[in-house]
């Protein structure tokens, strides 16, 4: 399946792309466009104005995706709270990790040569974040 989003990906879009590859479509291919009109017909758009998989009310796209694909994994919901705060900074959740994640991804976008490379670099960060949250959920506290 092809998936399309806006160029210049940051927290919400890198997190969504990771979620798609890990939990929704492991053969996903990504297309980056400048304008909603450039989305190929066979592609599913995400995190773009007018797309179904996007911000709704005060939810960011990652939260919308968990909802639409009925992903109940508690570790993913913990990541959703972090992504929400990094993206929207509205203090809806207590997620102090958000500031750090935002800074790391902003820094990565300065060294990445393309959105494709940005995906390669950010993927392992979300793998680690997921594993941490998964264990934290099991243990009821952060793994040492």
């Amino acid at each position, binding site marked *: 399946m092809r998936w399309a989003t806006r160029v*210049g990906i940051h927290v919400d879009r890198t997190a969504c792309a990771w979620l798609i590859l890990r939990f929704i479509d492991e053969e996903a291919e990504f297309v980056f466009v400048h304008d909603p009109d450039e989305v190929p017909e066979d592609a599913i758009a995400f995190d773009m*104005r*007018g797309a179904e998989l996007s*911000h*709704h*009310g*005060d939810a960011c796209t990652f939260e919308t995706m968990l909802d639409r694909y009925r992903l109940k994994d508690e570790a993913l919901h913990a990541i959703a709270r972090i992504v929400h705060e990094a993206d*929207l*900074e*509205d203090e809806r959740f207590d997620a102090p990790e958000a500031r750090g994640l935002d800074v790391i991804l902003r820094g990565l976008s300065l060294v990445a040569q393309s959105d494709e490379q940005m995906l390669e670099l950010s993927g392992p960060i979300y793998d680690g974040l997921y594993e941490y949250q998964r264990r934290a959920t099991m243990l009821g506290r952060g793994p040492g």
Partner: protein
Amino acid sequence: MTPPGDWVLLAYRLPREPSAPRLAVWRRLKRLGVAQLLDGLVALPLDSRNREQLEWIAEQVVEADGEASIWVASPAAIGDERELATKMQRSIAEQYQAVSEQARDADPSHRNRRTLARLRRELGRIERRDYFPPADRQAAREAVEALAATLDEEAVR
């Protein structure tokens, strides 16, 4: 003289009732520190974050049965931009001054750790919507860190 810079504008209209979406949109705009040009027309200096944040608010307006559009524009006259920047800076300066005052007035007993944490958070929020930093910014940072230092001394004593 540098020519006027680019700004991202959100033009929007929301139904009078219900009031909850109006309030939600207004809160989000306030948190971003937008300049209000007219009723239903707000502006921020153009960068990818500001543009994206305004796009999401536009989307929220549309979902609440309103109308919204996003524009990228630059003021035709430098004077207009200067006036806008000055207005934004003055509003932010007042917010920094409020933080400075609260930091100075805080009772330096160690129970005031919570006040310190609150002021640091508030300072962070103001800094995120500060596009034309006034001198009051440094003063507010210093006032908050001075409070932190007195709390540390109190703890040692």
